[in-house]
């Protein structure tokens, strides 16, 4: 009997990689039993099992899909000892050097993640990368024949969620239009402080009226705490640090936002950008890592080293140039539709059947 199980390092209720695994699970169940296992599932997650409960006895026709996004000694040991054919889906690993000063333990795990990937190379029967950039990263550590496929990516997954009333009220009370939105974890390479500084320039130096909402899990809480503190000290109006949100709350923000903006310097794919595009929101980002591939011609790609001054001016340009805003919005809708799960599921299932 065919069984295809997925293994993750961590799993969260609204985590992007867990959501991709959930999308794939529904397709994989057409072949037979398919479960998701993680070494660190969040307490509220009920549809992901702990890795220790993975069925011990090897069975014929069983495949393990490993979603690589970081290092973990227990997951590595499990994969190394597994006799099942191993499929890799690579989501990239954050640059460890940027975490060194804030969280040395996390930096060590990220570094370990790259080392583990190198060691696992010979065991992998199929390598999938969810962006060209991720495929290039795998090639650099000796992987070959990498398939680029956005397996499990659902940019329009939030459309089914109704707007959250409380969030709507909060936005009415605390923000003024236009709303600039950032969605991503609080981590050093995401550079949320550049966005706060941009908001400072917009409101204090250029004389614009804008609001900025920053959404995402507090991976390193001091990153957002320091950015918020800077906003307070510089008396920047309209900066909202909203933390991790539910799907309904996030959908509310996407419906309200005029521009999606990120100063991130490292992204393997950047799912929030695709989600923004699916809501017809133009994007402003740096020309770094996978971002140019993901964004294409649906937004403004600033130079890799762009600072708050260029970001602020890009916002002004998009707000004052309705034809450009409209062009990006339309193109974003078209591009995000190309990533739809319906289109990628068939290709993904063919790849898995090839392994069987």
């Amino acid at each position: 009997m065919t069984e295809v199980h997925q293994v993750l390092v961590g799993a969260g209720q609204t985590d992007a990689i867990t959501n991709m695994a959930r999308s794939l699970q529904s397709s994989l169940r057409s072949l037979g039993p398919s479960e998701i296992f993680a070494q660190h599932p969040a307490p509220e997650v009920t549809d992901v099992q702990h890795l220790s409960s993975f069925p011990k006895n090897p069975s014929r026709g069983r495949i393990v899909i490993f979603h690589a996004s970081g290092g973990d000694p227990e997951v590595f040991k499990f994969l190394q000892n597994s006799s099942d054919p191993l499929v890799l889906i690579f989501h990239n690993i954050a640059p460890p050097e940027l975490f060194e000063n804030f969280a040395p333990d996390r930096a060590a795990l990220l570094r370990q993640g790259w080392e583990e990937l190198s060691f696992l190379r010979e065991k992998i029967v199929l390598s999938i990368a969810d962006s060209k950039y991720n495929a290039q990263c795998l090639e650099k550590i000796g992987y070959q024949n990498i398939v680029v496929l956005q397996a499990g990516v659902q940019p329009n997954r939030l459309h089914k969620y109704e707007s959250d009333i409380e969030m709507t009220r909060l936005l009415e009370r605390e923000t003024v239009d236009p709303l600039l939105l950032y969605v991503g974890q609080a981590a050093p390479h995401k550079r949320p402080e550049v966005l706060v500084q941009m908001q400072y320039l917009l409101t204090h130096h250029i004389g614009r009226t804008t609001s900025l909402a920053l959404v995402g899990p507090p991976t390193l809480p001091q990153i957002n705490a320091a950015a918020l503190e800077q906003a307070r000290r510089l008396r920047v109006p309209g900066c909202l640090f909203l933390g991790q949100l539910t799907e309904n709350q996030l959908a509310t923000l996407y419906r309200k936002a005029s521009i999606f903006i990120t100063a991130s310097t490292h992204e393997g794919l950047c799912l929030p950008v695709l989600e923004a595009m699916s809501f017809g929101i133009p994007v402003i980002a740096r020309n770094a890592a996978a971002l140019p591939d993901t964004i294409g011609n649906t937004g403004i790609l600033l130079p890799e080293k762009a600072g708050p001054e260029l970001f602020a001016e890009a916002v002004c340009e998009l707000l004052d140039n309705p034809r450009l805003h409209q062009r990006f919005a339309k193109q974003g809708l078209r591009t995000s539709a190309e990533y739809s799960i319906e289109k990628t599921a068939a290709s993904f299932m063919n790849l898995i059947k090839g392994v069987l």
Partner: protein
Amino acid sequence: MASNTRPSPDDEQKPGHHSLVSSQSTDITDVLRHISETVEKRRLSGDYPEGLEDQLDRHYRQILKGFDVDDTEMQSLQGALHHLRSTVNFNASHIETWSPNPLKRLLHRLLAKLTVRQTRGVLLQIVQYTDALDNLLSQMVENAQEATSTEQGQGLFSNRSDLERRLSTALDRLSLLEEKINNSQTL
């Protein structure tokens, strides 16, 4: 709970110092050129004081330092020890036998099988050595931690924090002065 910097009456929007018009183009090359040119114009006109971005970045980093606990050095030492331990996973299977050339791959694997006894012997010696090294380093880190928590150690770190706080305050005052100058220019 959301944290925010809620707009207040004091935060009333000021009119733009220079209302620079948008490119009105939909050609991305034109748009990017226009964005760069506008930033340059703002710098030349004094809307953006020289070195503003660097000043803002320094300000943020100064604040960020304050959010780090005072034993950053100890944390990084412990992190380095943790990293060292995480790499101590000696196993013959970690020795690369892969090659893009199938003949070379076969040769590497054959050599690995022929020298398995010697490889294990060397690995055993390395493991014994790293165990001893790990004990020594753990003891050193522990001692260093104790030393930093002594009265003298605390004094050293608190002096540094005081200096950082004073620097942050000075930077805050500079920002306020800059804001006042901008306001007076607008009026």
